[in-house]
């Protein structure tokens, strides 16, 4: 069990069983908690590398639990949520969750999210300057963007948005996060700005801007830089 230690917090036994099997096969050590109290105890005593957290728990509100986990530890948290809970997702991300997966989910999607969250953690410890993802390469030190090895000219705002997406590659970034990081603003109305710049970025980066493969929209939540097959730092 050397891939890491994952805490699964869900009151549904079948889901826990499924995750135990799947993650176990990927050589993760799986800790299980059926309620908030056990979850907090596990975070405190076992120090998991990642938490999969279902927001609907029998004893407490999932968002409350998330706040408590954050107070204890910076461990990456991926929220498992229902599809109709956009507001809950955004709130969870704002409260410090790293990503979310919508139920029902496919195993591959879940594994991709877990990998992204774990890698982001490693990368924070010592980020490498050049990010490669498919045709795209971004040199964060020289602030240079290459597409198919040809230099691409981006406006300063476009670059800053791309930089945020690259720094959190594979993870969802909320509108609010992007607005705060790039404009220093949190006004809801400015989401329109963001949409304009995202459109321009897609026009420059995507093979087919109408069907973006790289910068994908998470409806009601934000944007995500999708990791294509040959990703490296």
């Amino acid at each position: 069990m050397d891939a890491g230690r994952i805490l699964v917090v869900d009151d549904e036994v079948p889901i826990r069983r499924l995750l135990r099997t799947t993650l176990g096969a990927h050589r993760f050590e799986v800790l299980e908690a059926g309620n908030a109290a056990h979850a907090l105890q596990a975070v405190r005593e076992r120090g998991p590398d990642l938490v999969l957290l279902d927001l609907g728990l029998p004893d407490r509100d999932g968002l409350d639990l998330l706040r408590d986990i954050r107070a204890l530890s910076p461990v990456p948290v991926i929220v498992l949520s229902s599809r109709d809970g956009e507001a809950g997702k955004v709130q969870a991300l704002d409260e410090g969750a790293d990503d979310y997966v919508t139920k029902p989910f496919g195993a591959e999607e879940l594994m991709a999210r877990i990998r992204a969250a774990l890698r982001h953690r490693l990368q924070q410890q010592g980020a490498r300057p050049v990010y490669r993802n498919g045709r795209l390469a971004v040199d964060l030190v020289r602030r240079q963007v290459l597409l198919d090895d040809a230099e691409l000219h981006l406006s300063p705002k476009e670059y800053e948005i791309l930089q945020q997406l690259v720094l959190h590659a594979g993870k969802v970034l909320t509108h609010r996060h992007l607005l705060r990081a790039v404009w220093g603003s949190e006004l809801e109305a400015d989401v329109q700005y963001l949409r304009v710049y995202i459109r321009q970025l897609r026009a420059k980066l995507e093979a087919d801007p109408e069907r973006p493969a790289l910068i994908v929209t998470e409806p009601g939540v934000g944007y995500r830089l999708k990791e294509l097959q040959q990703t490296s730092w």
Partner: protein
Amino acid sequence: MNSTVPSEPHRPSPEALLERVQREQHGKLKVFLGAAPGVGKTYEMLSSARKKQRDGVDVVIGIVETHGRRETMALVEGLPLIPRRRVPYEGRELEEMDLDAILARRPQLVLVDELAHTNAPGSRHPKRYLDVQELLAAGIDVWSTINIQHLESLNDIVAGITRVRVRETVPDAILDLADEVEVIDITPTELIERLREGKVYQGEAGERALQGYFNTGNLTALRELALRRTAAQVDEQLRHHRRTHGIEEVWPAGDRVLVCVNESPGAQALVRHAKRLADRLDAPWTALYLETARSLQLDEAQRDQVAENLRLAERLDGNALSIAGSSDIAGDLLAYAREHNISHIVTGKSQRSRWFELRHGSVVDQLVRRARNISIHVVADPQAESRRLPRRAFARPGDWNLAAILPVTLLVAAATGLGWLLHAATQVHNVALIYLAAVMISATRYGMVPSLYAALASSGAYNFFFLGPRYTFTVADPANVLSLVFFIAVSVVVSQLMARLRQQALATREQAYDSAELLNFTRRLAGLRKLEDLQAVTTGQVARILDLQALLLLPDDDGKRLSAESGLDDKDLAAAQWSFEKGEATGRGADTLPGASRLWLPLRTPSGIVGVLGAQRDGRGALLEPSERRMLDTIADLAAITIERIRLAKQIDQARMLAETEQLRSALLTSISHDLRTPLASIMGSISSLRSYGAMYDDAQREELLTTAQDETERMHRFVGNLLDMTRLDAGALQPKRETCELQEIVGSALQRTARLLERHQVSTAYSHELPMLTLDFVLMEQVLVNLLENAGKYAPEGTRIEISAQRHRYAVSIEVRDEGPGIPEADLQRIFDPFFRIRGGDRQRAGIGLGLAVCRGFVDAMGGRIRARNRRERSGSIFEIELPSSLFVSPAEAA
């Protein structure tokens, strides 16, 4: 970006803005005001209208009187004309403006000549200005004409100047309503010139007019009046402008004007005077009628006059009220004035005889003497001589209390007997005081006329029996003549005094009765919860206090029209609807639609009109007396407030119910999505995991994933089944089959289906002997048991016991499912069978949205049984009991 909100210190008040908006939706009124006939108002109106027409405005002529003037007639040509309505009246045919045709035609601008015109009887409104108000309310602009002498408040002055009193008047308020007033001003000489040329009146009429009305002095005075009135109008518009545009204004010191009215027609002059005074002072004003013992002696015509005087004040935009007073009129007036900060009191010169004033003192004198800081305006009545009140009848019909004759005669006889005894015993001749006592008793008990009769009878008996020569009506001693005369005089005075006392006592008692009744009414209203009850309480109250047949009409559900009430004729319906829509009193005794048999009062609340109150008295009696009308108004107000209160309570209830329904709905959605998605998540996760990473798993892991997928598929199947069953139950589409079943077989089948679910529980069964065969739907009954078992398995911890037992009782078979779970909170025992009820709601609940038990109840009910839940006494855990009555038993013979 920090933008500072600019401060707006002079924002117009919301009321002012509202008024402005309402004015803008309203049609605009322009009045062409003239000092006298013939100045050319109609001419001016028509020529301005033609200009408008050229500008593309849709102008029509509602009604225009050309008086045969040629220039005017020429102008009418080319303007569309709404044909006049012909009204048959006393064998003749009158022509009137066709209000409905204009409303239907909906022009932008309509010309309505002669604003002060009185409509033919039977028209919707008695006056044309009321027609105009309706046109304005319908959003149609109106141009109209009027001469200065038709203005209500100037009526007296004009009559004073010209010695001609004009009967047709309009309230000043209509002029205040006008957005624009144009004075058609020509000099008197010019007008006289026009008259001479015959441009105004044809032939001799012109000459006559010149002799009388149209002399230079009159015309100059009238012209001045017209100009002054318009100047006042401009002032008002300026003030209005300031108000609606938020311009600060220094209000004059808080003047208030009070005018005292009585039953005299001359009081109208006082009211108009007060209106002019108040206008000059820019002060609010009030017309006050004091109800004293004297009020009870007024005849119908006088009461009408009081009501008319008060209504005039209302028409002139004053307040009108009548309050109960004592014999100290001046004191009452001053008390009211002090209480309400009145600065000016307008009163008339006393019209009482000097003799009366000597005895009672003049009210005016007292007012002036005791007024201190209040100004007293004593107004002369210009027509006092000619308008001298007809002397009040000696006694009112009610005083002719014939039934009192007998007891009074007996009283006098008793006095005679007593005097006889006294005389026999003491030889005292002077027994007049005993008779006086009889007169006093008659006066207090039976009123004035019987007491006068008592006085006469007593004097006769006294003379006959006691004054010598006795037993004759002749009086020998001159001293006795004198004492007889004094006796008669004293008894008359005494009888008058006593009778007045009695009347005052009666009046007081009536008022006390009214107050008590009102209090009682208020209390009963406070307890009302339903509108239907209000109808009965209100009509009962009106009948009791006012002796009127009352009717309460409420709007239908969309709030637009009154609910149709059988037994009302068209006139009453129209009047009621009108009152409801416009918030005016209509019908009998009111200005609008007076032809209806009932008086209709709008029930007004701050949020609008909530209904109407109709009142009717048998026969064609006069209007209500002022005090009665006030009482009816009060009752209407109380009823209105109650309707409002009941409505609000209902709305709050509805809002609460709606909120609860909404809450339930969203909880339901959350539940359903949770219950469907949770198994789906496991199934999809397992399958996708197997598919993507199958090679990485060993056999045990693969088996576990497949088991998860299968279990969850079954769970979802059960859930969807329940959902469909519930839908069938809701739609009433469930038809249980009636087949002969054996209970053990059903239980066995249910246990088989739940075996996997309950594999970690210990399940046991127990049956009593002689269980009958039952007429049941096998499939439904099995589903009920499956749901109960699934429920038990879900809530009871693993390893605990679940018992199923069936017992035969005399009239029923009961089946029980017992578990060792946590049990059910007592408060929820009834509700757990409700659809979508879960012991703890929300997303944080174990799977299962509580459809299972609802389906159980639905099925058991459909089969004719009963299902109940209770908690175990001896330990924690719940018991679900199904009771199947003996009517479902199949007799052994049948079974065989």
